[in-house]
């Protein structure tokens, strides 16, 4: 059945579904980053914040899976039935953080980029998805505020700042890549599902990432030349399949126990 506003059970546009999965799956991995790294926090408030951000991201993932399930997908398959090649998470989060500064950079860029893509649905005709985009934004607002605080503290140490700058130089192109080629196709916008072209979201992401320099107190080198080879998967917004090691971390371990 073709998609009809507010009618569950109707099929969504395939490209729209892919964008939702890219957000949800990236947030699944991001939630795992937080869960795995919580004990590396520098204080009890850090622990509380990391766990709070962890549960929020898992919540966003779950809400999007439920939305997709309401439109013809099998929820169990989405949550625990997919292989590493079917999970649409961002390449940015494939490599585990190499240290505290790298963790801050990875989580900050993932929070910012997933928000940018989700923000394109704030005016979606279906209130369910528009409301979900708004909720993601409200929660991400405070996640980013905490990230900015971390950047500010790191910026007080010369060595820490240098490590962070290096990490940013490595990870920023991967975050940028997630938005696709600068002149690539944009079917979700062209069909009117997203009111903002991907190009504008990409530009806004770059601008916001650069804006964090004021917290760090240092210049961040932005390599804006994300490379796209033939194996770029536009549907999954990534190259290749999720690495096996990461899949072992995020996959649902005992499907028979699920309910």
């Amino acid at each position, binding site marked *: 059945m073709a998609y009809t506003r507010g009618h569950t059970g109707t099929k969504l546009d395939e490209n729209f579904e892919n964008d939702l999965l890219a957000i949800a799956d990236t947030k699944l991995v991001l939630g795992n980053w937080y869960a795995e790294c919580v004990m590396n926090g520098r*204080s009890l408030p850090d622990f509380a914040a990391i766990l709070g*951000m962890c549960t929020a991201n898992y919540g966003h993932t779950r809400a999007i899976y439920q939305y997709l399930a309401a439109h013809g997908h099998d929820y169990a398959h989405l949550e625990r039935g997919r292989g590493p090649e079917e999970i649409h998470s961002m390449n940015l989060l494939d490599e585990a953080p190499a240290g505290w500064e790298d963790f801050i950079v990875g989580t900050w860029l993932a929070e910012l980029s997933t928000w940018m893509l989700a923000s394109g649905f704030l*005016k979606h005709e279906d209130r369910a998805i528009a409301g979900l985009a708004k909720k993601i934004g*409200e*929660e991400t607002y405070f996640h980013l505020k905490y990230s900015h605080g971390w950047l500010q503290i790191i910026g007080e140490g010369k060595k820490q700042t240098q490590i962070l700058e290096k990490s940013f130089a490595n990870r920023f192109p991967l975050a940028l890549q997630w938005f696709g080629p600068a002149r690539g196709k944009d079917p979700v916008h062209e069909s009117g599902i997203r009111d903002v072209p991907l190009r504008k979201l990409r530009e806004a992401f770059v*601008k916001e990432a650069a804006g964090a320099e004021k917290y760090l107190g240092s210049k961040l080198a932005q390599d804006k030349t994300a490379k796209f080879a033939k194996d770029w998967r536009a549907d999954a917004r990534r190259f290749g399949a999720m690495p096996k090691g990461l899949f072992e971390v995020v996959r649902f371990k005992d499907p028979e126990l699920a309910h």
Partner: protein
Amino acid sequence: MPTDEPAHRVGREAGGYGTRHRDLHSADPDFDGVACPHCDSNDLEVISLFGGAASEVMFRCRGCSTSFNWIKWQGKLPPAPSAGT
């Protein structure tokens, strides 16, 4: 180690972001209008951006030392082309 610090100050100078909240966020304009539920003072410090629940910010009143949680969000969104911010 025994200390002459008042009890509510102990452990507050350990370093790191968590212990710096009050410096970094106590004058945050996002929290303008937040008032102590006990004495109504606006002279507050942020104890934790993620309080008793992820949806709460924990404050302490500098006037009467009351600690309280405040529900965050208030509709604010990070900058984005569609967000009007």
